[in-house]
């Protein structure tokens, strides 16, 4: 298993050094020959952030920018969506739910794919930070899924006459919520961190199959849910000011999700790496 090079003299987390044989600790401290491929790679500078002690301060510096962008973009998006965009000629003002529903639904799928990517990378490369990033994304993804379902129900009632139907789009989105909750429950119920990471990664990777099912469900099956309003191959079937409002909200939730994940991963790093040399030297660890 290849490890990313990390500075010598830094202890791994407590569980690692306790369970590893002494010779494994020394080999981990010395970068294997394969690591040269990473250091000579053009973007090799990024791989040093694979170490939690490098990523922790970086995440702290990036956090206010993403959080600030999320707030500003949300203000702009809500102003366009709720104040400037005209009333829809078919759905009246009920359509304004689109400005939160579609961005949340997109983010629920995107976050799942990113979460599964990091979980899978953690499984294959055995890098600690990848698994921590996956866990940091899961609650935010679950929240986006909940918002998509909730706003969908409130949109369905006035336009379809029902809060819920068991059709392909709605059912697969509900399954996505259960996948997030299952991933989180698995993490919470397993004391052995490494086993929890591996089990969670397998669950996350199997569940990825559900994401294209959600996305294409409106094409594959005859569902009550309307088709995509925005598509890469043809012009969007909505007024441009409505599209601007929606894309602003997508950007707001995207930046907000990154900010939330960065904040959460910093807490997870502290929880998992406590007792290590570098954490005990952090200003926040000192009284």
């Amino acid at each position, binding site marked *: 298993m290849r490890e990313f090079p990390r500075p010598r003299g830094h202890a791994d987390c407590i569980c690692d050094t306790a369970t590893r044989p002494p010779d494994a600790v020394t080999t981990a401290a010395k970068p294997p020959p394969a690591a040269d491929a990473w250091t000579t790679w053009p973007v090799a500078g990024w791989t040093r952030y694979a170490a939690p002690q490098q990523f922790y301060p970086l995440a702290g510096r990036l956090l206010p920018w993403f959080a600030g962008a999320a707030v500003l973009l949300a203000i702009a998006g809500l102003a366009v969506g*709720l*104040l*400037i*965009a*005209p*009333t829809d000629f078919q759905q*009246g*003002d*009920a359509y*304004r*739910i689109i400005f*939160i*529903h579609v961005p*949340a639904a997109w983010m629920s799928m995107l976050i799942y794919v990113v979460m599964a990517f990091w979980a899978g990378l953690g499984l294959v490369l055995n890098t600690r930070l990848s698994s921590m990033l996956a866990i940091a994304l899961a*609650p*935010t993804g679950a*929240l986006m899924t*909940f*918002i998509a379902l*909730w*706003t969908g129900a*409130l*949109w369905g*009632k*006035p336009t379809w006459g029902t809060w819920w139907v068991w059709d392909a789009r709605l059912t697969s989105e509900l399954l996505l919520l259960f996948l997030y909750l299952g991933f989180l429950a698995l993490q919470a119920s397993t004391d052995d961190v490494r086993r929890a990471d591996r089990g969670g990664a397998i669950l996350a990777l199997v569940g990825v199959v559900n994401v294209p099912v959600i996305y294409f469900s409106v094409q594959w099956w005859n569902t009550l849910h309307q088709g995509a309003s925005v598509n890469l191959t043809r012009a969007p079937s909505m007024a441009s000011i409505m599209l601007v409002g929606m894309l602003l909200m997508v950007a707001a939730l995207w930046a*907000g999700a990154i900010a*939330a994940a960065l*904040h*959460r991963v*910093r*807490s997870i790093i*502290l*929880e998992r790496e*406590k*007792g290590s040399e570098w*954490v*005990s030297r*952090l200003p*926040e*660890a*000192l*009284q």
Partner: protein
Amino acid sequence: MTWTSLSDFAAMGGYALYVWGSYAVAAATLAWEAVLLVQRRRRAIEDLRLGASLREERHDPPA
């Protein structure tokens, strides 16, 4: 601006319950997430300090 008055805006063309029900719950759950994030970080830092003071007790017994 598509609204003529504040009450017009609040009424959302008769869909106030659905539109405001969506945005209120979205805002409330996002705010709740922010609170949980801050709490988790505070707990993690408290835990670090507790661990550090316990180690100090073990390694430096009072003279």
